[in-house]
């Protein structure tokens, strides 16, 4: 088991990755940071076993916390419009188009089936191999391949609309 200060260092080193992964699951920045906070609590409480790869391990715990969360809420999280940006009259038209696209992505990803979203997040956003993602989600590699492809296909159709 890694020492507490080692766990802290690992979390700090991977904080951007953890926040990005959490954001891809929640489609909401505040919820993502809540999730990362809960993840950090859990990791600091339980530690990280010495015989596991820290990143897949942390993503697994994060995924489990998120599944617990959506089960307890019994609702699917929906992305919130970035009010700060929407209220900001200073941004130029190029920025505006970027953020409209971002909201479209947030909505489309939020609408994916949860298991497709998880597979896509791990592989396409976090860059895990299919084998690593299969370990995190505890499914066969072929299932990861299928879920990622279906998620991409769904998003491609959404973005064409």
């Amino acid at each position, binding site marked *: 088991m890694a020492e*507490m*200060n080692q766990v*802290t260092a690992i*979390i*700090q080193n991977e*904080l*951007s990755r953890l*926040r*990005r992964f*959490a*954001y*891809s699951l929640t489609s909401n*920045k505040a919820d*993502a*940071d*809540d999730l*990362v*906070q*809960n993840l*950090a*609590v*859990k990791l*600091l*409480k339980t530690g990280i076993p010495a015989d596991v790869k820290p990143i897949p391990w942390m993503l697994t715990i994060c995924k489990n*916390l998120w599944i*617990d*969360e959506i089960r*307890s809420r019994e609702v699917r999280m929906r992305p919130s419009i970035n009010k700060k940006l929407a209220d900001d009259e200073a941004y130029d038209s190029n920025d505006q188009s970027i953020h409209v*696209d*971002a909201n479209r*992505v*947030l909505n489309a*990803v939020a609408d994916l089936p949860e298991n497709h979203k998880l597979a*896509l*997040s791990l*592989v*396409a*956003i976090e860059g895990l*191999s*299919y084998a690593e993602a299969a370990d995190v989600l505890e499914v066969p590699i072929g299932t990861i*391949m*299928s879920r*990622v*492809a*279906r998620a*991409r*296909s769904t*998003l*491609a159709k959404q*973005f064409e609309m």
Partner: protein
Amino acid sequence: MTPDDQQLLSAYLDGELSADKLSEVQNRLLIEPELQHHLNKLKKNDTAIKNTFDEITKDPVPESIQALLRPESRKVSSASSSKIGRILQNNHAFRYWPSAIAASFIVVINIFISQHYGNSDSLLEIDAAQPSEQLAHILSKNPSGSIITIDEHKVHTELSFLRADDTFCRQYAVYNSDAGLRAVSCYEKSTWINKVVSKANLKNSGTDTYQPASAEESKIIDDYIEANMQGVPLTQAEEKAELQDR
């Protein structure tokens, strides 16, 4: 575009094709514009997705997370409302309820809890205790992170969680300049019930900070939360919703 081709291109993008399949796709891409077009579209979408979710890394890390990752946050509790800090403090700070109760500790108990007990011996039957009316009011109204001063005493609402049976529970601390206690109380049948209470070496230093004691003191609290908490502590929004129901 067939589902098989979509899966093939997806795996190609991820670098997950065998050598044979890779060669096959590369050859087809050279002669099938539609396949190439779809691949470009998938690449573009992947970039948009990565950029979208990478946005959060440009935002500052919330103080509650930073505080958790600072080594000092695990040594001395602060008045921060950081749920994480409170959990860690809980993990490391407290000791089992002792059989010998210090006189100064009894003073605190008498003020906040002992009106439900006739003498100091019955304090050991702490599992059946109810918080005083004053304390119950604080637990029903104040979010975690609050420090309420009553005369020379302070009540610190530390965290909230749902028990496995969906009962709303709160961890709190009471302390003055001489002594302190920490407890978990749950709202059962419209009444706050203390489930566990532990002596804690909490001291009102004149500011809103206090010093945690040894890890042993935390065990009774830790064990209860560990055994009963549903998932993780409530977020501020979830806690607010629960408090509105009280």
